[in-house]
């Protein structure tokens, strides 16, 4: 899957949790939780959303790798079949 496509999917899931966000206003390289008000339940729903949409297992121990939008997209690219 292409980076742009993955990024759009991730963004759609985020938007369903935090409807107020705009793609243009997000800095893809900066920590996500500094930019969006996500509590632990929102964050879990975000992970569940990616799990259900992309069929990837994201263990809790990997959460620390998922800091920025860029991190998340490259993490998913590695996990998904090319």
């Amino acid at each position, binding site marked *: 899957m292409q980076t742009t496509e993955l990024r759009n999917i991730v963004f759609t899931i985020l938007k369903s949790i*935090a*409807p*107020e966000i705009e793609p243009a206003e997000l800095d893809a390289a900066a920590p996500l*939780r500094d930019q969006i*008000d*996500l*509590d*632990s*339940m929102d964050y*879990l*729903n975000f*992970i*569940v959303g990616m*799990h259900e949409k992309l069929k990837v*297992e*994201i*263990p*809790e*121990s990997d959460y620390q790798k998922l800091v920025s939008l860029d991190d998340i997209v490259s993490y998913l690219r590695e996990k998904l079949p090319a």
Partner: protein
Amino acid sequence: MIEFKLPSLGADMDQGKLVEWTVKPGDHVTKGSVVAVVDTSKSAIDVEIWHDGTVWELLTQPGETVPVGAVMALLLEAGETQEQALAWKRDHAAVPVAAYATAAVLPPAATVTSAPSTPAHDSPAAPAPPTLVSPAAPAARTRVSPAARKRAAELGVDLAALAGSGPEGAITIEDVEKTGKAGSAAATTPLNRMTEIRKTIGAAMTRSKREIPHYYLATDIPLARATEWLAARNTQCSVTERVLMAAVLLKAVAHALKRHAALNGFYRDGRFEPANAVHIGVAISLRQGGLIAPALHDCDSKSLDELMRGLADLVRRARAFTLRSSELSDPTITVTNLGDGGADLVHGVIYPPQVAIIGFGGVRERSWVEEGAVRAMPVVTASLAADHRVTDGHLGALFLADLSRSLQAPDKL
């Protein structure tokens, strides 16, 4: 005859607007069934009934605003016949139904003058010769998609007045939005909803600070054991079965409350009434601002997994403004959890008529001394604000100590 009255949905609510009936005359309902959707200043609420029976007559029309305690519908009890029901109604027909509906909350002198101001009470209000189960009322229930219903509640659109453009005349979200845009300025727009929520929070908190002599305590609780236990548990299950620390903290509160019943209940009419169950009001912040603290029922008897599922469901529904009436009227104590992005310590304000609120700050790694050695430790600051008319700081301190102990043995929760 069972009179279905608009229940109180919390100390700060005195009226509600009927959005729609989810039952029609002839439907059988059981205890806990949702019978109506009522819009309050906070949320559209699924209102439950607390009796088994058969719906006989719907007295309130969608779009009408009625006070708490007003009789909204009549239901037949098991075995009650039409004749008995009609006789019952004749006995009560001396009072016009509209006045009867408001009599429950207004002094008798006020009923006469207030009756005309009650909005359009046509058919059910007239003390006309009673007919059989009035099919004039919403006999054929309009088909409305849940999304359209939710949107209608947000926009304050009266579904009964809408002609649907969907299959079999179903009302779609587009129909609602078209009407909502063209509708009056008084409609409950999301912005109005926020203003209303701010007002209700203001009223409840003002009452709390005026009436309740709060005392405050706090303690730091080490969470190494709970964190490790939870991480080990979560690695073994799929993402959809993971449990958050927030649920563990709620379970620990319920556990510790077993020994401190004086913190769980209500202060009413100058005395404390302990509650029979632990229904924790979970403070949920709304993305648009404001917060709501609906009850997570029976936290003491639910397993941790059940509690987590209940919490996820409650948060989702609170943010979608689709709570149930019992969830708003039932909380026996409140827990507010600031989460990891928040501050370290919260000094809670009690939600009347409750008598305590427990707060958790963010879980932080701090230096911690244990058995003479300093180590890094995940720590949460738990706080208690409680009503001094009911308990003293000594009991509060014992409660916090029990809470801390519960969290050192998470597998036993």
